[in-house]
């Protein structure tokens, strides 16, 4: 799994590439925590290149979401598809996660 960071204005976009499984999901958690330490205020986690996620990956996303909520920061998770979307649906967390269908939508939400 690879993690790349880019910026769009004040918003940081994390592009996740590969599989988020029980062996590597902690990396995303660690990266976000590091960014929080650097006072990043708005995140978009882009899962367009992710085609596999298990409960560890979901757990990492939950941890990130709850932390961000506590700190009243902005977060969006975008471009979920295929089995990733199915897994999130199975856990019924579609409403819990701040999911948008595209990065554009997420950016619009963060401005408005």
């Amino acid at each position, binding site marked *: 799994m690879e993690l790349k960071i880019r910026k769009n204005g004040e918003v940081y976009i994390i592009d996740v590439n590969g599989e988020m499984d029980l062996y590597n999901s902690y990396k995303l958690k660690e990266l976000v925590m590091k960014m929080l330490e650097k006072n990043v205020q708005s995140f978009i986690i882009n899962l367009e290149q992710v085609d596999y996620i*298990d409960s*560890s990956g*979901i757990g990492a996303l939950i941890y990130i979401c709850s932390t961000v909520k506590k700190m009243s920061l902005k977060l969006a998770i975008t471009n979920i598809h*295929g*089995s990733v979307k199915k*897994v999130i649906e*199975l856990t019924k*967390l579609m409403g*819990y996660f701040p999911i948008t269908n595209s990065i554009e939508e997420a950016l619009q939400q963060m401005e408005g």
Partner: protein
Amino acid sequence: MNPIKDLRADGSDPLFDKTNMLYKEFPSDFRQIRYFTLLIVQSAPLEIKEINLLEQQISEIIKNAVKHGNNCDLNKKVRVWYSFSSTHAHLIVEDEGQGFKDLEKWNDFNRKRLECLYQQDFEHLGSYVSFRTSKSDEQDGGNALFAALEYWNGGFVYNQKRNGVAMLKKYPQRRHGISIDGE
């Protein structure tokens, strides 16, 4: 509203019938969980794999057996019976552990979780997204069983000792569009 699904233990459930199932056993090696899963799911026809959803669901069950059932003890085995067709996936996974002691607690937790969901109460849902026991660690998602209860629509049941679980997934025939007869 769907009936609230519970985890139940019933060793006499027909899902534990092992006839005509393939069999493999593995040492409880945490590093090889995805490899073992692959060995099992490679026998499944492509159309039921849903890309990799079936693999992912099976890996959760094996992970539970390896990690929570056998404590990653290489000397302890995980035994898997499996059978696939284009319309079903049937699995039985047994470990050598003491069994899922917190089963009732899990059911309580899940009930509260589903209530929050039903009422769209996302604030409180935050406390019910991950099931943790004293034995859970940082990496545990605590979500595997929530998804499993939803996924294995033909039944998901533990044996009497709760160290074995049988599950069945039934797949609808793929068809295009929605039937309007009978509406």
